[in-house]
């Protein structure tokens, strides 16, 4: 029993459980389908934020181009859905029936070869994850092998985001241009616009997110997680302990890319279209702020950050649109100047001490027991996290 409690505390399983309860039970019970669908959309951004926790919080690598991977995942899912929506019957008004409408407008008379495989759902699912990861590998391998990092890496990822946006907008015959790929209706005959399917998609999305968080938590607790932290601290020491530092960074980048792409695909399914406005520089940076608000070291914090900022955006853009940008500006500046560890940091420094004072009688069944109290000399030491962020890492 004690061993179990230790494990729960050490793995941060408690806070993950609370998050799972919130998004899988509380939200669906208290919200109508419209609001829930919104939450579902926000949660797709949370994928990117979770990826950024691994990449930026743990790996110390800031990418300002995560929209690229989110967008790629989303676009590939949209390609599949678009092909399904463009059967010859539905598009008989076109000069070439059976191809997506935007291709017809752009005088294409047959489906480009690289669109063909997206007739297959299993290929699409594979590609949604694999293609962004391969791209991430190519981009990051060249950079990290040459030890390009820090600010310079961040702005190169931005350049990549910019280039992909220009490509998508410029090649509208193949991509749908600024409008994006719209008017998506069914997934293998199943109408994704129904309320019932919205529910199903919401739960699939929430389930995947929890799964991804568990995966990331497992990675954090493995030696790889320790190495990422070690690299952020003393990169040369890790290198001269016989590790190929660049490959670990590549791994973190590829992992974050794959996670973002899943979010993108779920976005397309829930929102019903994909457009270049999710690929560029602005969405990419906004996604960084989700992670920063939640706490860049905290996986669940990233989810709360994504939810909170987006709720704020929806609320303020309705009630005080002029204020919204100021608030966003304040959020950016405040989060780096005053609360570098975000919500999770605030929780650590304010809420948790207060909670533990309240529950000072020891073996309370608290799942948020601080790592240090769960510590026993016999097991391996727990304090594997940087100062001030212990225990908030889940």
């Amino acid at each position, binding site marked *: 029993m004690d061993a179990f409690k230790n494990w729960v505390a050490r793995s941060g399983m408690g806070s993950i459980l609370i998050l799972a309860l919130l998004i899988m039970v509380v939200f669906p019970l208290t919200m109508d389908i419209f609001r829930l669908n919104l939450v579902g959309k926000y949660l797709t951004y949370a994928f990117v934020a979770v990826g950024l926790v691994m990449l930026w919080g743990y790996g110390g690598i800031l990418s300002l181009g995560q929209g690229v991977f989110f967008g790629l995942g989303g676009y590939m899912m949209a390609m599949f859905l678009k092909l399904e929506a463009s059967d010859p019957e539905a598009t008989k008004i076109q000069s070439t029936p059976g191809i997506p409408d935007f291709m017809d407008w752009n005088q294409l008379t047959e489906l480009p070869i690289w669109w063909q495989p997206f007739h297959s759902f299993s290929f699409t699912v594979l590609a949604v994850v694999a293609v962004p990861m391969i791209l991430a590998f190519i981009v990051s391998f*060249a950079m990290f092998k040459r030890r390009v990092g*820090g600010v310079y890496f961040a702005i190169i990822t931005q350049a990549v985001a910019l280039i992909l946006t220009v490509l998508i907008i410029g090649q509208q015959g193949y991509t749908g241009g600024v409008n994006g790929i719209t008017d998506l209706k069914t997934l293998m005959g199943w109408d994704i616009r129904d309320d019932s399917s919205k529910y199903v998609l919401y739960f699939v999305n929430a389930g995947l997110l929890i799964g991804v968080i568990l995966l990331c938590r497992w990675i954090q607790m493995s030696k790889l997680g320790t190495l990422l932290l070690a690299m952020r601290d003393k990169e040369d020491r890790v290198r001269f302990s016989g590790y190929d530092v660049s490959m670990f960074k590549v791994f973190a980048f590829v992992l974050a890319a794959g996670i973002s792409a899943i979010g993108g695909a779920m976005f397309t399914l829930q929102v019903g279209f994909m457009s270049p406005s999710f690929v560029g520089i602005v969405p990419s940076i906004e996604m960084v702020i989700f992670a920063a608000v939640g706490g860049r070291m905290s996986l669940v914090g990233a989810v709360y950050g994504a939810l909170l900022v987006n709720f704020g955006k929806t609320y303020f853009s309705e009630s005080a649109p002029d204020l919204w940008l100021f608030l966003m*500006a304040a959020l950016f500046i405040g989060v780096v100047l005053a609360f*570098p560890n975000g919500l999770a940091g605030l929780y650590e420094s304010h809420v948790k001490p207060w909670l533990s004072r309240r529950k000072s009688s020891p073996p309370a069944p608290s799942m948020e027991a601080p790592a240090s109290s769960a510590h026993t000399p016999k097991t391996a030491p727990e304090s594997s996290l940087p100062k001030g962020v212990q225990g908030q890492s889940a």
Partner: protein
Amino acid sequence: MSFDEIYNIALMQGFAGLSLFSVLLLMGLGLAIIFGQMGVINMAHGEFMTIGAYTIFLFSSLTETYAPGLMQAYFPVAIVFAFLIAFGFGWLTEWALIRHLYKRPLDTLLATWGLSLGMQQVFRSTFGPKEVSPTLPDWLMGSWAPSEGLDIPINGLFVLALTALVTGGVLLALYKSRWGLRVRATVANRPMANATGINTKRTDRLTFAIGCGIAGVAGAAFTTIGSTGPTSGSLYIVDAFLVVTFGGAASLLGTVASAFGIAQTQSISEFFLTGSMAKVLTLLLIVTILMIRPQGLFASKIRR
């Protein structure tokens, strides 16, 4: 087509490339100085350019209302003010924001991005959401036609001259002035510079402000070519970025070479291909070269 015509077109096309080069260089210069000196990327660079552009607009409106007789003369004065105002805001920004974040360069990216959002909203509240365009003095408009069929845009000449002036000024300052000496010392070895009595904090602030001031001048020059709106900055920053990234960020020579390379590629390919394809081609070329040489064209040897 006669030989004369081909000759004229070639001349004008050459000038088009040159004028794009000067625009890109002017946009990237301030960013490169700040990055080279402090390792900080100022994401609000575009907004500092917008400050310069709005300064021109303000001067043009004021002159038009209160002293219409001076319409031919206000422009140079307004450029000086564009520099001073952007310089002042830059100074303030460094004091309020940047200096707290020197140890965390990645966080400056986020903080200055936040700043840019706030500034955009300020522009929108002050000048309205619509794009504005100052009334330019007549001598800046139209073309200079040295011979039949050859038109050289005067605004292009003006921007070219301004860029030469600013770049020359920066180089001169960097290699001849005390500020330049301090900057070079700080870049080479910050603790040592500190130890020899250079106030590196002051140097940083001055550098940041000068970078912003140059952005203001760039924005001012830009009003002769395009219009200004609250979100124009986000358009400018993209090009400025590419120039600095491609140039290798830390060296002024790299910035010049990269602006020249991008401008010529773009301008020549635009003439022979379609506009969108030219843009894609230029960007792809940049990315390919960055893949082979991620550190950019001219990486500095001191910083990694």
